[in-house]
């Protein structure tokens, strides 16, 4: 029996992030340039970080750490298909190291910044890194900021007071009772 992966319905509506997408893009491009020792003017937002800009695995982690500090969010550590398989069970998205048809559909749905021709049958999971661009990080940061904005709109679970975002840690704090609310890991927030 196939694992129970949900239908590819749109994500529920969330409040818009306080930071504009343009501002996020500017900061992501600057972070990419810093992580890869490049001049920011040479970073094309939809260039493959791995194939065109020479990023290696540690560069992706470096970039993630930078963006986490910049926006006080927690980026995912797993790729989209790994997250989906972790959550809904293994097998239907990746088989023998290859992305299945269903996996390709999920990638197309959740990574709209990727050109459709790149999501070809036979794509291997080890090649997913090649799909990642600065635009991928822009989208992920925007989604995480929107999720954070949604949490900020809710009252404190302990006292009902208003929550405020920390400028120095990926957490919220209640303005009334001081209770800290850590942000969930990016792997838990995003599919």
């Amino acid at each position, binding site marked *: 029996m196939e694992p129970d992966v949900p239908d590819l319905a749109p994500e529920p509506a969330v409040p818009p992030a306080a930071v504009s997408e343009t501002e996020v893009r500017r900061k992501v491009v600057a972070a990419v340039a810093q992580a890869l020792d490049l001049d920011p003017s040479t970073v094309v937002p939809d260039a493959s970080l791995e194939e065109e800009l020479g990023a*290696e695995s*540690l*560069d992706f*982690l*470096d970039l993630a*750490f*930078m963006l986490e*500090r910049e926006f006080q969010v927690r980026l995912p550590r797993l790729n989209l298909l790994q997250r989906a398989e972790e959550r809904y069970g293994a097998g239907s998205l990746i088989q023998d190291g290859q992305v299945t048809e269903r996996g390709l559909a999920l990638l197309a749905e959740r990574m709209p910044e990727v050109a459709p021709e790149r999501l070809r049958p036979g794509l291997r999971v080890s090649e997913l890194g090649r799909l990642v661009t600065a635009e991928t990080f822009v989208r992920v940061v925007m989604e995480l900021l929107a999720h954070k904005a949604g949490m900020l709109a809710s009252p404190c679970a302990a006292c009902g007071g208003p929550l405020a975002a920390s400028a120095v840690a990926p957490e919220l704090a209640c303005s009334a009772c001081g209770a800290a609310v850590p942000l969930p890991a990016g792997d838990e927030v995003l599919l």
Partner: protein
Amino acid sequence: MTSGTLEGRAALVTGASRGIGRAIALELARHGAAVAVSYRERREAAEETAAGIEALGGRSLACQADVSREEDVARLVERTVRELGAVDVLVCNAAVVLSRLAPLQTVEEWRSVLDVDLMGPFLCIREAIPHMLARRRGSIICVSSIVAQRGSTGLASYAAAKGGLEAMVRALAVELAKKRIRVNAVAPGVIQTEMTAELRHLSSEEILKHIPLGRFGEPEEVARAVRFLASDDASYITGETLGVHGGLGS
């Protein structure tokens, strides 16, 4: 920048309440580093080390942590960054040694040594890496032992941990080089510390026969090697284990 200086750098030294760790903390401070002194149990001794650093005109803090516990290490690194501004130099020195013949060693004892001596450095390094990446520089020095390379009765768990540590140093040196983070080790021989007191008492003459320089080492001699590796004087050195053993391993 003056040769060997650590001005403007922040260092974290584990197991720094006494012995080699204390000597390292003081040596780094003497060359300008602000130093976090980590200890597990000996609070007063750690505070003495910190006071010694302050007497040298340096900044310091003493922080309790069991390096084999993830939450302790996270708190230790977070506090170092919060109070000293960074972790530019990490010295993984905290270790335990258990001298026991292998057939008599329990699994719990084996694990307790590996937890502190091998997993401890891994946890400290893992926690420090994001901060070093943020500063675009870092120097990590692990304190190994001559025992990693030279067999010694009753020290199988300690030797396994230190051998693993040196292998980890080589692997991480390659992994982190691109980000200008250097990873090295020092491998002391028989140094005059509390840890080796019994050994030196029981077989001093026998051991000295095998040390070409004809004497035991001083903690400060290990500390100077660590300070060298921490500084820009060692800017092209990574993945190395520097023996500080008077020729014992040669």
